[in-house]
């Protein structure tokens, strides 16, 4: 078996998530009733037997550190390898690197030391359940220098204008990478190459003063490099804005999306909280919703997602909303098209109404 190491680069992620990322980075945004975005990437890596994972973080990483701990939830608390969370503490006086390359330069020891032949580099914003060993197999079979992962989406949504698009030839060799509007082949910000090749590219990119390895070193060299496109065909979402967050969250209420993302053979793991099973009171009414452990529901909940330990009072009505961990909704409150960040409390009789395109977002720990 070929050994792969993982790098999750949270720097330079596209963030239009407003209130949701006031106090956290994109990777730490809560998603799907009990996860954070980064859980999907980490779990995909674990499911591919990747047990050395570095996380490049630049800012707002407090809640990320709290969430990841020593990586125990993903079995990453290892004697050898495991989880390396690498925030910026850079003191090299000879450092001339820029942008994303600063992470590579200052954490080059991780890449040197890690026992792996290949490195897969990705971010946290593309939600998927992908078999990374299969990506590597195709990479080796096609003798490519770099393999990039893409999704051919059925429908283009506003968020896709922020992603690179791939143009491929008949053998799935990448011939062009740009932002072409009508192209449905979405680059998933995930590429794999040999560790030795990566070390060379890092060195070259720093010498040339590049600030992004993929954009500045790989994309301009598509004619001389063999860059292969690996098509991912499973459930996929790119989350960068409140609107894309809301719409893609709501998709999970469909069986197909839920089953595509949460597979028994390739589970998505997250930190456990030891909550009680969800408790439904005698007069609760719940339809078409996703409900996490620890919730205590007395009121009406429809087309909504409730994270862990949400309390819904009697007569409260929650519709088309996302309610994050430990929120308390007092009796007779009405919420429609609302996103409540963690630990909000909504007082009795309060009415909050947003729209599908513009959900009403309440920042963490507000009392309304």
């Amino acid at each position, binding site marked *: 078996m070929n050994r792969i190491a993982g790098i999750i680069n949270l720097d330079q992620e596209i963030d239009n998530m407003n209130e949701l990322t006031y106090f956290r980075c994109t990777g730490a945004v809560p998603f*799907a*009733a*009990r996860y954070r975005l980064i859980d999907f990437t980490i779990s995909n890596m674990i499911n591919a037997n990747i047990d050395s994972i570095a996380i490049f973080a630049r800012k707002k990483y407090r809640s990320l550190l709290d969430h990841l701990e020593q990586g*125990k*939830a993903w079995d990453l608390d290892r004697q050898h390898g495991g989880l390396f969370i690498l925030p910026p503490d850079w003191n090299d006086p000879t450092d001339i690197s820029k942008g994303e390359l600063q992470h590579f330069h200052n954490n080059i020891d991780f890449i040197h030391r890690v026992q792996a032949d290949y490195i897969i580099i990705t971010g946290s914003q593309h939600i998927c359940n992908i078999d990374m060993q299969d990506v590597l197999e195709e990479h080796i079979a096609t003798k490519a220098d770099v393999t990039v992962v893409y999704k051919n989406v059925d429908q283009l949504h506003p968020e896709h204008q922020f992603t690179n698009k791939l143009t491929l030839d008949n053998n799935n060799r990448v011939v062009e990478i740009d932002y072409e509007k009508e192209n449905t082949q979405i680059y998933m910000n995930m590429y794999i190459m040999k560790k030795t090749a990566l070390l060379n590219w890092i060195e070259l990119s720093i010498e040339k003063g590049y600030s992004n390895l993929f954009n500045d070193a790989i994309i301009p060299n598509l004619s001389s490099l063999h860059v292969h496109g690996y098509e991912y065909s499973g459930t996929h979402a790119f989350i960068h804005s409140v609107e894309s967050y809301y719409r893609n969250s709501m998709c999970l*209420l469909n*069986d197909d999306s*839920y089953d595509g*993302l*949460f597979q028994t053979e390739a*589970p*998505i*793991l*997250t930190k*456990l909280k*030891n909550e*009680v*099973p*969800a*408790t*439904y*009171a*005698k*007069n*609760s*009414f*719940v*339809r*078409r*919703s*996703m*409900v*996490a*452990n*620890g919730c*205590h529901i007395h009121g009406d909940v429809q087309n909504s*997602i*409730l994270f862990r330990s949400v309390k819904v009072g009697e007569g409260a009505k929650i519709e088309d909303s996302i309610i994050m961990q430990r929120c308390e909704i007092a009796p007779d409150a009405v919420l429609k098209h609302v996103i409540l960040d963690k630990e909000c409390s909504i007082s009795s009789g309060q009415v909050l109404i947003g729209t599908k395109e513009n959900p009403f977002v309440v920042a963490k720990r507000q009392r309304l």
Partner: protein
Amino acid sequence: MKKKECVAMILAGGQGTRLQSLTYDIAKPAVFYGGKYRIIDFTLSNCTNSGIDTVGVLTQYEPHVLNDYIGIGSAWDLDRNFGGVSLLPPYMQSKGGDWYKGTADAIYQNIKYLDYYQPEHVLILSGDHIYKMDYARMLEFHQSSQADATISVIKVPLDEANRFGIMDTDEVGRIVDFEEKPSNPKNNLASMGVYIFRYDVLKDYLLSDASDPQSSHDFGKDIIPTMLKDEKQLMSYTFDGYWKDVGTIQSLWQANMDLLEDTTQLDLHEHTWRIYSNNPSLPAQLIGKSATVKNALIGEKCHIYGEVDHSVLFYGVDVAKDAVITDSIIMPNVSIGQGVRIHRAIVMEGSIIKDNSVIGNLSDDEEISVYVGSNKNKDPHYVTMMK
């Protein structure tokens, strides 16, 4: 050499024959309870929450599920450098080996384990009771009353007292007499099977009990009566709260249903006294657009399209459209087909229930049915009924 103030020993080796098919291939403490727990979670969590970090779990009957479940004890924060949880099955010594012949014999055979930690006190617990109890309080009481042994008791209705071991106490709580299932109980203080002994005293009694061929090697029948006869200082410690011995199908069913009461005495939501458990990491449950869920506890990764009323569903249960579940307990990873009707039943782990089946007696509100749908070693679709 470091010492421990108090070491807990959990008796978890019993078969629990009265639970019938529920303990066909697992030990009683490993039986599921409350939508995500196994019974032993309560005792283990009580230890952790009481600050007791050295726990021996005595196993004998069908230990594999229990072994795997407890592991190194991380779920209960019992993975410690010194102490932590140890699984203690019977073992061979140079002079041979034997099964655990009784509760006292099980502790006697592990005197070496206790000696290693040199505890001042030993807490003896059963792994098959549902309750939240602060053993630290009981230990303080035991120490301040300078008792050789302290027995935790709970008040039971006098007309039910003949089902328990009953303590007769004086005005300061000193135990003057002990009667096992008395026909004319003089008191209503029932033993909960929770004991704290001074270890040096206990060790003496265990050694002499082991050499007595007449003894049944049981705490309630042998050790406690002998200590009383010797006029040792035996104190009763009254526990006030929810406590249930889930030894029968009826009591296990009832203890689950107790969780659905508005005013349940057993508050699992209490964050200062969490009940920890070792569960798989699963996605949130999905309640479908045709579902009705009322008065229920529902675990993770359940997919519900039918009707659930006054029931407890463990994780990974699928309920198809038009299925109706009432007054029942559905254990993990059960698949329930369309139009199925389940009433007053316990459905065992992994069962697959075909469309339009009926489980339980719909016209009876006394019976509890047990449905075993996927036991590898047993005839599938095996149903027992009992009053």
